[in-house]
């Protein structure tokens, strides 16, 4: 019927696989595709449900989106003048996360490079186990460490009046995100083929030159993913920052000021906000804002990676 399908006039009959095997394979393929797609479905569904709880407030006349985003006045239960301004909370989240990344990225990537390139195999196995253990510590325990141990240390070494502040939250978040960065980063470096390393060394590069001229550019996508996962962990962390940052609504003037983050604010207030009230809806809107922040961070990183690749 179709000449292009059968150029040979007398093709040898190919062995046919049994029908159930073909069907089974198709079913399995469909199942795997479904699992892949489900990630998108879940993200979209979560966003939809959070936004659905928040949406009615957006059309209320008294509510101003500009005030929500750019005012620092957060008075959800005021008796006379209710104001929902989240700028101080957003700045709180960004400052604590920023400090955490400043501390965690050099440490995390350094540890990843050491583990994958410079360390003996036996030590590496031990260190990996310890790092995985570190990431298994529940965040409430980290929060407790921040509240008790770290806060006393900070008061003693800096003379700050209160030990729960940006510095405390940043250090705790750094400790939480370092294990994530190390394990993903190490995987990314391991994925670079050995031929790259051999070629570099054969050209007369020292091991350090080989690492930063060959390995880091080759593994940049994976390393960026590692950092991003660390950022995501830090932005979304709730319990530890609730306990370690001091929970004060204002724009911090320094590392030793207390702040409140978006997540901690939701955790502290959602339980007491009557379901369906304006306060409740604004807290869900805060959740949407948090979602958009992480989305923006991911998107920006994606563009950065593409930019690097094009060059």
């Amino acid at each position, binding site marked *: 019927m179709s000449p292009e399908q059968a150029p040979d006039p007398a093709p040898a009959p190919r062995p046919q696989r049994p029908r159930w095997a073909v069907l089974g394979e198709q079913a399995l393929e469909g199942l795997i595709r479904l699992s892949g797609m489900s990630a998108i479905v879940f993200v979209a569904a979560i966003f939809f449900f959070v936004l659905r709880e928040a949406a009615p407030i957006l059309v209320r006349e008294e509510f101003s989106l500009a005030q929500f985003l750019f005012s620092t006045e957060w008075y959800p239960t005021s008796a006379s003048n209710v104001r929902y301004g989240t700028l101080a909370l957003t700045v709180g989240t960004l400052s604590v996360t920023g400090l955490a990344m400043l501390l965690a990225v050099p440490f995390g990537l350094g540890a990843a490079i050491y583990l994958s390139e410079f360390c003996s195999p036996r030590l590496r196995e031990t260190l990996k186990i310890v790092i995985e253990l570190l990431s298994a510590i529940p965040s409430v325990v980290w929060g407790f460490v921040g509240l008790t141990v770290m806060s006393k240390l900070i008061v003693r070494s800096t003379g700050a009046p209160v030990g729960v502040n940006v510095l405390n939250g940043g250090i705790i978040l750094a400790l939480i995100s370092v294990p994530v960065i190390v394990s993903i980063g190490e995987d990314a470096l391991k994925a670079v083929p050995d031929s790259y390393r051999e070629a570099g060394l054969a050209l007369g590069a020292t091991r350090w030159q080989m690492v930063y001229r060959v390995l880091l550019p080759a593994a940049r996508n994976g390393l960026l993913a590692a950092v991003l996962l660390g950022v995501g962990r830090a932005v979304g962390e709730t319990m530890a920052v609730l306990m370690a940052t001091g*929970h004060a*609504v204002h724009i911090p003037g320094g590392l030793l000021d207390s702040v*409140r983050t978006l997540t901690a604010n939701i955790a502290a207030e959602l339980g007491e906000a009557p379901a369906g009230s304006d306060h409740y809806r604004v807290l869900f809107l805060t959740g949407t804002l948090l979602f958009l922040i992480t989305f923006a961070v991911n998107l920006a990183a994606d563009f950065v990676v593409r930019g690097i690749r094009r060059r």
Partner: protein
Amino acid sequence: MTRPHPRPAIHLPLLALASVAGLALLAACGGGGAQKAGQAARTVIQNKGSDTMVNVAQVWAEEYRKAAPDVEVEVSGGGSGVGIAALIKGAVDVANASRDIKPSEAEQATRNTGKAPVGFNVGYDALAVYVHKDNPLDEITLEQLTQVYAEGGQATRWSDLGVKIPGVTDDTIVRVSRQSSSGTYEFFREHALGNKDFRLGSRDLNGSKEVVELVGTTLTAIGYSGMGYATPAVKKLKVAPRAGAVAVAPTIAAVHDKTYPMARSLHVYTLGQPAGAVKKYIDWILSDAGQKVVEESGYVPIPPEQRTKP
């Protein structure tokens, strides 16, 4: 016309069961007399009102179940106004209120149900102002508290209050407050700040105990919390209602004679004089057992001579 017939048919065995249970109860009580034979085996008392009191009311309900297993108290919050509104409609047996019932509400209830609400003082809510034990300050006025805590207040340093804290170079006042959803936060706003909003930037902690702990470790801190939370590391300030007036120490006696300015009575209200299970429940609340719950929840119990004897 034919529809209502099946209903008594369903209820008859229930009624019979209830009266049998009631009789059994009577027998078990040794002929207590007060219990009527028609009463259901399990009496339910509906209790609604003040969010400040909802925790203590819940513990009352749980503890009372041990004292009277045949009575179940269903507790819900919503606020004093919500509880009284439900009482006016006759929807609840007992309303909790952390304020006095308004004359208009009492009148409405009488008009609606034919019974006048009767109130019982079941305890007191009193806040103390805490500072570090090494702070030389001993008393504070409500006006000064407003200057420290309220939006637009001018006092940001201890020197603004005329206080020199020994061994401190930066004497910025560290304001310790509660998260905005707590009843303590609202009580302080109403009684100390005259319903002005809090100035932002205070450390808003999640529990009464945490406030006292932070104040105890911070030389320049000031905080407010229930009277029962004091530790050796902190000092309770005397509070004066206005400048020049006598400052009153937050003691149980000062709360009882209403000279301490940051205290309020906690009430329960019923429609008409309570009777039967409701009366027994309120008598129990006013007994030593019920008042122990009040004390353990961080509130001030009523004086021993006003309590009921078991």
